[in-house]
């Protein structure tokens, strides 16, 4: 990817939000349509550096999210490509009507970079946890929904977002992410899952912060249990990679989804829809928040609490592998 110079080193030095901001600055150098908006979260979302570089293309909107998203829609209708930086909870819940009607219905290229997603701002409690945003955003027509696994993938997603003609929702975490990718060149493509680990016994489909955890789990399953787990980084939740899911069912017959989000309507829901419509049988489990609001705590502790960290995934996979699951050779033919 021309111009971008990030690698795993940058990732250890930079929070994911900072990588987003640097990527945006680099793109804005050559694309005058790009502008940035925030609602008093310039510091928290790390978009402040954009303001320093392009003070005339930065709009501080104050603590007024509904106004910000509708203003961004107006800008986008008039030839700009606005990037909004706020918390995922405020993009998906507070300003939902504006996002629905002004951005998605009118199908304008507002790029909503939404941070502090899932339980990554765990200590702030439910008012700041964003554990329903994927379910909400996924249901909005015209919207592309991406949940990058780490800083590198965030850079790729932000790059890709500009190329997409319509609105895009990118969901990132607070602070630093565990590193999944060494650099930018692993073939990121919107709507195409990345196979991070090969496997024929079962498939773990993950997004965002759980991708790293899934990968760790797969390595351990390989080493300890001799279970070959395929890991898919399903960074694009919409449009979802149906082909990769159907192939996973066909090849492995067991699928586990894992997300820092409610299991209702999120990644697990999206994958379940594809599997159900495929007509193929499959042992299936959705890991995530089980229809609850999360307690407070550090992100890693909450991931453990909700069973979406490496140990939680291992436990579920081991249970699933022990299920008396009838593998009927014919099933795959019923598609």
């Amino acid at each position, binding site marked *: 990817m021309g111009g971008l110079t990030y690698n795993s080193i940058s990732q250890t030095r930079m929070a994911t939000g900072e990588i987003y901001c640097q990527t945006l600055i680099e793109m804005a150098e050559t694309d005058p349509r790009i502008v940035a908006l925030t609602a*008093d979260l310039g510091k928290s979302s790390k978009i402040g550096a954009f303001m320093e570089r392009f003070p005339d293309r930065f709009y501080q909107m104050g603590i007024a999210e509904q106004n910000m998203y509708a203003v961004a829609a107006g800008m986008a209708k008039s030839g700009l490509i606005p990037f909004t930086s706020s918390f995922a909870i*405020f993009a998906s819940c507070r300003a939902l009507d504006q996002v629905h009607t002004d951005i998605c219905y009118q199908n304008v290229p507002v790029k909503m970079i939404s941070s502090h997603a899932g339980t990554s701002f765990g200590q702030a409690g439910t008012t700041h946890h964003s554990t329903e945003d994927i379910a909400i955003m996924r249901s909005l027509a015209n919207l592309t929904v991406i949940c990058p696994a780490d800083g590198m993938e965030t850079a790729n997603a932000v790059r890709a977002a500009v190329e997409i003609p319509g609105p895009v929702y990118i969901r990132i975490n607070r602070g630093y992410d565990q590193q999944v990718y060494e650099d930018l060149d692993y073939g990121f493509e919107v709507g195409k899952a990345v196979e991070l680990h090969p496997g024929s016994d079962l498939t773990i489909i993950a997004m965002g912060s759980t991708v790293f955890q899934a990968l760790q789990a797969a390595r351990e399953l390989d080493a300890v249990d001799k279970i070959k787990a395929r890991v898919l980084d399903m960074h694009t939740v919409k449009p979802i990679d149906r082909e990769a899911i159907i192939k996973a069912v066909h090849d492995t017959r067991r699928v586990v989804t894992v997300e820092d989000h409610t299991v209702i309507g999120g990644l697990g829901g999206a994958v379940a829809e594809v599997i159900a419509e495929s007509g193929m049988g499959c042992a299936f489990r959705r890991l995530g928040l089980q229809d609850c609001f999360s307690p407070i705590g550090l992100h890693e502790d909450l991931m453990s609490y909700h069973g979406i960290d490496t140990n939680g995934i291992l436990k579920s996979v081991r249970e699933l592998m022990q299920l008396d699951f009838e593998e009927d050779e014919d099933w795959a033919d019923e598609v």
Partner: protein
Amino acid sequence: MILDKETLSMLEAKANQLRHKTIDTVVYAGSGHLGGALSMIDAATLLYYNVMNIDRDDPDWEDRDRFVMSKGHAGIGLITIFSDLGWVPEEDLKTFNLTGSKYGIHLDSNVVPGVDASTGSLGHGLSLALGMALAAKQLKKDYFVYCMLGDGECQEGSIWEAAMAIAHYNQTNLITMVDRNKAQIDGETEDIMKLEPFQEKWTAFGFHAETIDGHDFEAIAQAIDDAKKRTDQPTCIILDTVKGKGVCFCEGDYRWHYGGISKDMAQQAHKDLDAYYDERLTRVKGA
């Protein structure tokens, strides 16, 4: 003088103690919203220890006056009051914000005794407070509802929807207070999104609005007393305050919206607070 000397001294001592406890809690938690907790603590102290009709033995007493901390991130200050009132075990402050604790940055009304509304998403509190005030009228109860807003929070359109409705219903059993510390996260309110002319905005929305020194118990008590007697208009009391008041390295600096403090800084903060208390006592004695 609306407050006698004894009451004033009690309030001074209480607010001082709560400021110290807030610092301690920030240290336990590792970080916290110090600035906005210290700017509102005087008003909250006055409310809980002098103004509000509450039952110390029963934080859920149904006829109690309500307090909605709409700027929910100041929970780290509010919790020190609840602990002092005996609603929350003092020991629990040590768990503030830690994994598994009942107490996160934004207090949960279903979990923490004394919290009248779960807030944290800015711009909801005034509407919640209006609902409580309307319910009082509906149920023929005579409790008052107090709502504390952040000034930055008033950039949310929903605050003005609530304001319009409060004036429309002439809801004088609801007293709106704004912690006008002139700072938010990214900077000073007037640089981020101009609020001025602020008092006039409230007036235009149909309120009796006045700006008073938000660190002066006398002034706040007088304004509240007047507000409770006012029947022709709802009242908005704009508390002219300083973010981080009493701790020199925070005072007036928007960057202290949220942060961590080291043990050394905490020590310094306690020292500053002692000096600040002395200064205030001298003023009280001189009065």
